[in-house]
């Protein structure tokens, strides 16, 4: 790095005593050059190094979840090979393709920004935006299909809805229902799980929320008579389902959910780029934001490229 930076220093013309004065020739020439940088190259290199460091933090941010995945999978390999069948490989595959294409359009956007091709840049950014939106739409269909089939995290995974109305009510309270239900079934060992000290260590008491009557009904249903043929959920009727299968979906939602949040953030920053590109901010001298968002977008894609095989292609 020190070599790179000294190379930058070497390019600085007339550096020296002029430093102290607020506006050198470089500052007069480039309006975007911040006062504490000497040259546009120095400013660009700093921004790029900062972005790479931020991407390093992103890798570690996701990294802990990948470790969690590895721990759970090594502990319950049968759960992962079984539950992976419930994921839709076609949809996941299409999504992978969509994201890779959007990475291509993003890279082309950087290319056109460097060459000052404003219209081409704007088109590429819109295409990238469309890719991101398309990914989320497909993801929405995947998620909603799974939630309808009760392929969710936590104890709700094992609670069959008696009828459509009940299921809808349960879904309507999405964030609350699993929690309260969990409280009610806290001491009931989850289907097939050996009761490991369940009486000693209890799961979440659901914090401040109380137990709503409807949720209590659900939990009673769960603990009551389970009649396999009355259940629409394939996994509940399947005697071959290994214990702790809910954990696969817990880590699936955690990782793809966090990735989805990153896609949303990506759409926001790409939207800001579109605004600035339309205004004409970018050209051969200054395209730093396009470059940095490009790097971010590639890492979001890269995370998905790891997630796809790890969840969809392991059976």
């Amino acid at each position, binding site marked *: 790095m*020190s070599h790179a*930076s000294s190379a*930058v*220093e070497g390019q600085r013309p007339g*550096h*020296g*005593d002029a*430093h*102290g004065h*607020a506006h050198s020739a470089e500052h007069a020439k480039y309006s975007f050059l*911040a*006062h*504490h*940088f000497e040259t546009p190259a*120095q400013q660009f290199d*700093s921004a790029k*190094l*900062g972005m790479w*460091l*931020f991407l*390093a*933090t992103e890798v*570690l*941010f*996701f*990294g*802990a*979840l990948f*470790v*969690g995945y590895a*721990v*759970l999978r090594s*502990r319950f390999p049968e759960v992962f090979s079984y539950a992976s069948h419930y994921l839709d490989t076609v949809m996941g595959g299409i999504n992978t393709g969509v994201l890779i294409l959007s990475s291509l359009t993003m890279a082309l956007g950087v290319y056109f920004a460097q060459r000052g091709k404003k219209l081409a840049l704007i088109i590429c950014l819109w295409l990238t935006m469309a890719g991101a939106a398309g990914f989320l739409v497909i993801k929405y269909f995947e998620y909603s299909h799974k939630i309808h089939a009760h392929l969710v*995290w*936590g*104890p709700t995974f094992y609670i069959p809805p008696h009828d459509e109305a009940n299921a809808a009510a349960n879904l309507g309270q999405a*964030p609350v229902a*699993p*929690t309260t239900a*969990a409280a009610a079934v806290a001491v009931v*060992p*989850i289907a097939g*799980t050996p009761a*490991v*000290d369940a009486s000693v*260590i*209890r*799961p*979440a*008491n659901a*914090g*401040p929320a109380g137990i709503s009557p409807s949720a209590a009904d659900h939990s009673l249903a769960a603990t009551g008579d389970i009649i396999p043929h009355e259940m629409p959920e394939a996994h509940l009727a399947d005697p071959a389902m290994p214990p*702790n299968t*809910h*954990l696969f979906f*817990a*880590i699936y*939602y*955690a990782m793809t959910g*966090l990735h989805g949040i990153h896609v949303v953030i990506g759409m926001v920053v790409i939207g800001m780029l579109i605004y600035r590109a339309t205004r004409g901010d970018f050209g051969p001298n200054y395209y730093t934001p396009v470059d940095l968002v490009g790097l971010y977008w590639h890492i979001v894609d890269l995370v998905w490229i790891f997630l796809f095989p790890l969840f969809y292609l392991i059976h």
Partner: protein
Amino acid sequence: MTTIEAPRHDILDTTATGDNYLTHSRGFLSWALTLDHKRIGVMYLVAVLGSFLLGGVFALLLRTELLTPGRTFVDADTYNQFFTLHGAIMVFLVIIPSIPAALGNFVLPIMLGAKDVAFPRLNLASFYLWIGGALFTLYSLAVGGFDTGWTFYTPYSTTTTTGGVIPVLMGVFILGFSSIFTGLNFIVTIHKLRPPGMTWFRMPLFLWALYSTALIQVLATPVLAITLCLLIVERTLNIGIFNPTMGGDPVLYQHFFWFYSHPAVYIMIVPGMGIISEIIAVHAHRHIFGYRFIAYSSVAIAMFSFIVWGHHMFTSGQSGLMNTIFSLISFSVAIPSAVKTFNWVVTLYKGTISLTAPMMYGLAFLFLFTIGGLTGLHCATLATDVHLHDTYFVVAHFHYVMMGSALIAMIGGLHHWWPKMTGRMYHEGTAIAACVLVFIGFNLTFFTQFMLGSQGMPRRYYDYQPEFQTYHVISTIGAYVMAVGFVTTAVCLIQSLISGKRAPANPWGGASLEWQCASPPRHDNFEHQPTVGDCYNFAPVVWDEKLQGYVVDRALDTDMPHASHGSHSHGGGHS
């Protein structure tokens, strides 16, 4: 004294009547929206010292409760909240941001010879993230507090009924990002904003320490962030990843937590070590011994910090093989730490020691860090740790390191750079008296806790056997003495703002760049780009009677181009 007509920019810069960063603009918004690293540093300083007061009050409350076995003045649940709040506030709001974000922000660009950090807006954003995190933490107090301990161990943290757990988790999550962005900013600044002549091995050792710290901040903190996210999701949505009744693994939480929180211990101590390197060399007026060894040892500590976290979990049921490996690597941390300590002591040897307040803190650091570091070896030893784990011995050990070392270094650095930051000199005698009080109080408080711990007193307990009471009483008295010392320090520093005499540009005789700009510095730090030399070569630093301060006479600087070779041979001699 020789008078030299060579360029003496430093003298031009010392005109205290000129414009400086404090008077550059006025009004609340000129501070709240400032992008000036110096003002952001000062705002951090005020915020961190305010939190230090709050955390200190909780410390005094919990020590008071421990005066007698059983109830002294609060019930057990309140006591649990006291020690939790003391720990969480001191760790996340005080020590982690204290040196890098407060002092580092002020000093780093000036020491480097730059006009600002690489990303000034990000710097301000970090500060407001800190404020946001602090507000969440205070909010958690309003909604019932939390009693999980600062470690938030599962399953207790997912089942406790105290209402403030989720707000404080969010607060710490936000504080983590504040810390990440500060670290990121510093790394880029040191890589990209070094002026001509400022090579890596001409940087003051404080910058090496901040750089190493920043590496840890950037690489470790995201893991804490995702862990806290998982904990929030676990508590609200019951996903079960940390819940053993659902097939999850609470020990996984401990691994994740300590993967951050052990490196975080070095986020606290490494910048403190950097300050000590400056204080010892400047106030002993002697070239730092083994410059490269101290610089590399900071980086080495940063590297080691990532592979020792398992020593917090020797009793968690971790495999014997892992325990052995973690124990071995933990011992290795002693090597770079000892390299530093030996080099500081050798720097003092035959130095011209000025017993100023910063130097007193520096000497206190050497003493306390040696105790804190060596007792760390007891805890890293597998068989002894089984006995000492979760006792007051561990409490005493990490207070010697986190408070006796990191915070003492921070207060020492505050005294060292106070004239630079405020342009005022404090009363030296009062500051030294306060330092002595803190030192005595500290040892009274925590040395007794080594005894308590080795005799089996568990940490975090509300009640205890009557036989422990003598130690507890001494410890509490020590805490009060320390409090008096810190109040004296505060009075001394505040008094200097009101009636302290004006500080010269270079009151201590330092040779690094921050002593070559005015006190307080100009808005853009330097009037002229300063000449970069060996920042530990004190030969050209001479006392100027007229200015009542030191000046750097580069004409006396005969070996400047070979400065780094000189220090290298010192280092070589050490090995």
